[in-house]
């Protein structure tokens, strides 16, 4: 396994989301130029209802394979040798252009939105977004192509029941999962001697100034709610108030050092923070690189999220995109992906495949693979799933705004 710190993809991931911030200032002016015509009468809302089956059929009728597909994904989400993509190219003759351009849902959406609104193609055939605010906006604004499930036989045959028909995208109308992961607590074992069990550790004055929290409103809201014993998916506005107040107090008491994006993993492995909210797969990748980090889903519960593949409106090669999306649901391909990315696969058959592989290995490789197969964080049991919650989903734009401003007041004060 490579060292993630020196991986170019990782460094890109580290840098791009921030370098974006400067470019976006220009983007803002660019957008405004395009928006001048619109601004006279205001920017039109584009809210869309779910598509009718006949519309979906009409869209896909006559669409053909073009021999090319552009796949925009997150860093560290594909083996270095691009094995699965190479096999796909050999089997189908389709050329894959693989880009690691998505580091954050919000900034990705923020950049894509003006283009999609103007009806311009993004230049990507497949994009990957987490179930959350921005994905919901993509659906509501009609920026996604409804999938033709007749062309997704591997998904139908191999996806686990939990990954079909999710609440955030009923009937998988627009998306199929790429991988899932958990938000839990990552901690540095050099500094934290007692294993962390409870979410209350993040609020413990003992770790004053050594706690990291996530800057993302949905992530941090979930942890505030779970600490209060409220299930995020059932939370009400009154619960949000209490959670925000609790998080504000945590900040005012000087317990939080910083609200992190993806850079938390560096901070915790260097020891700038001792414990922090974190994502499972990141921590395993660091463990494999020999760094003193551990990951736990607190006993009060954690968050499970899913990164989903989808086709943005205006994609040039939708049929090729469907073929690739479906190809990643072949168990042997899904196994290859899981072994590298260390997150939860939507294909249950992967577990048996990896067990068979482990039986044929020896020594350390065998141990590592077996540890992975037994890990509840990569192959969660029903009991593990019961502890995992999904994000808060505010129902109206006004609720959404209230939710964001409540938690941004904490993270951006």
């Amino acid at each position, binding site marked *: 396994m490579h060292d993630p710190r020196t991986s170019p993809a990782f460094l890109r991931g580290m840098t791009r989301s*921030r370098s974006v911030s400067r470019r976006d200032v220009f983007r803002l002016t660019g957008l405004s130029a395009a928006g001048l015509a619109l601004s006279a009468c*205001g920017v039109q809302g584009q809210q869309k209802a779910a598509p009718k089956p006949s519309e979906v059929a009409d869209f896909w009728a006559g669409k053909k394979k073009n021999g090319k597909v552009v796949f925009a994904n997150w860093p560290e989400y594909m083996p270095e040798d691009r094995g699965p993509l190479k096999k796909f190219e050999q089997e189908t003759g389709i050329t894959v252009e693989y880009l690691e351009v998505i580091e954050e849902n919000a900034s990705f959406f923020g950049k894509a939105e003006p283009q999609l609104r103007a009806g311009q193609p993004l230049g990507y055939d497949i994009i990957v977004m987490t179930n959350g605010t921005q994905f919901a906006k993509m659906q509501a604004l009609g920026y996604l192509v409804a999938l033709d499930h007749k062309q997704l036989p591997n998904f139908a045959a191999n996806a686990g029941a939990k990954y079909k028909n999710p609440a955030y995208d009923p009937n998988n109308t627009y998306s199929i999962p790429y991988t899932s992961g958990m938000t839990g607590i990552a901690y540095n074992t050099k500094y934290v001697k007692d294993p962390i069990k409870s979410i209350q550790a993040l609020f413990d004055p003992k770790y004053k100034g050594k706690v990291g929290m996530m800057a993302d409103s949905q992530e941090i809201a979930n942890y505030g709610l779970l600490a209060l014993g409220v299930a995020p998916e059932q939370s009400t506005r009154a619960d949000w108030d209490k959670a925000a107040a609790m998080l504000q107090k945590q900040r005012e008491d000087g317990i939080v050092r910083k609200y992190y994006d993806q850079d938390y993993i560096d901070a915790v492995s*260097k020891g700038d923070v001792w414990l922090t909210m974190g994502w499972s797969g990141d921590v395993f990748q660091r463990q494999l690189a020999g760094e003193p980090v551990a990951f736990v889903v607190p006993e009060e519960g954690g968050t499970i999220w899913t990164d989903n593949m989808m086709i943005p409106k205006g994609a040039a090669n939708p049929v090729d995109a469907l073929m690739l999306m479906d190809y990643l649901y072949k168990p042997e391909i899904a196994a290859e992906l899981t072994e590298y990315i260390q997150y939860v696969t939507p294909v249950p058959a992967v577990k048996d495949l990896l067990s068979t592989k482990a039986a044929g290995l020896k020594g350390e490789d065998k141990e590592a693979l077996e540890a992975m197969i037994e890990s509840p964080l990569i192959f969660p049991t029903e009991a593990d799933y019961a502890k995992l919650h999904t994000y808060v989903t505010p129902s109206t734009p006004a609720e*959404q705004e209230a939710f964001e401003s409540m938690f941004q007041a904490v993270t951006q004060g």
Partner: protein
Amino acid sequence: MRKVRAAAAPYLLALPAWIWFAIFFVVPIAAMASVSLTTGNLLEGFQQTFSFSNYAKAVGQYHTQLIRSLIYGGIATLIMLVLAYPMAYWIAFKGGRRKSMYLFLLLLPFFVSFVLRTISWGFLLADDGILFGPLKSAGLLPGDFHVLATDVAVIGGLVYNFLPFMVLPIYVALERVDPRVVEAAYDLYASRWAAFRKVVLPLSLPGVFAGVLMTFVPATADPVNARILGGTGNTMIGNIIQTEYLTNNDYPTASALSFTLMAVLLVGIFVYARSLGTENVLEAAAR
């Protein structure tokens, strides 16, 4: 006819610049002004309602971060001035034949991307990193000492990242000071200090003005240093505008904040120009 053409030539030659200015400044600014007065949200659309209350709301909600940014930008600019003036002075008067090499050395780190340089500071200043780790294990620093995630780190980052933009204009101004003028001052029995204060310093003020302009404005609006080197309570207005625009897709608030920042900076610059005794701000900036 020829005369007319000759008279029109400078204007025609300036035409590309005017077109550039119109497309990339006037149009976006007008559009942004217009967006800043709309109400609505992304899903339902934004309607032009000439809602000036957007400004009151934005400033009311984010005045803490706005004031913080001005303070950070101001402190960083002062530190830069103190660091840059002697540096520029030394290169201009004592640099000799190696002047251009010193200038090149000054700029050398800036061949690396802005963000990467800032991240590198994150590595250098890590709590147990290569700088503080050994000092802590030697007992020279208390265990919980840290620079990252404090305002010191953010201001330090701003100073580091914008310093050349202060040095270069001051250098250019000092470089133009005729040594014979200084000699003349000595001939008239000026002490070294008096020669500096009465001759060199006033002649270099346009450079100082340009330097302050080129550092205070971007440093105040910068979101990168606060994001990478800051902690809780170090959020700057640039970060807020970014969040409003990208995360919340609240284009009116983002635009209103951008305009407010611009207005505050312009007022600040004019006040500064007046207090520096520069009669005409634009002329001074052009020098």
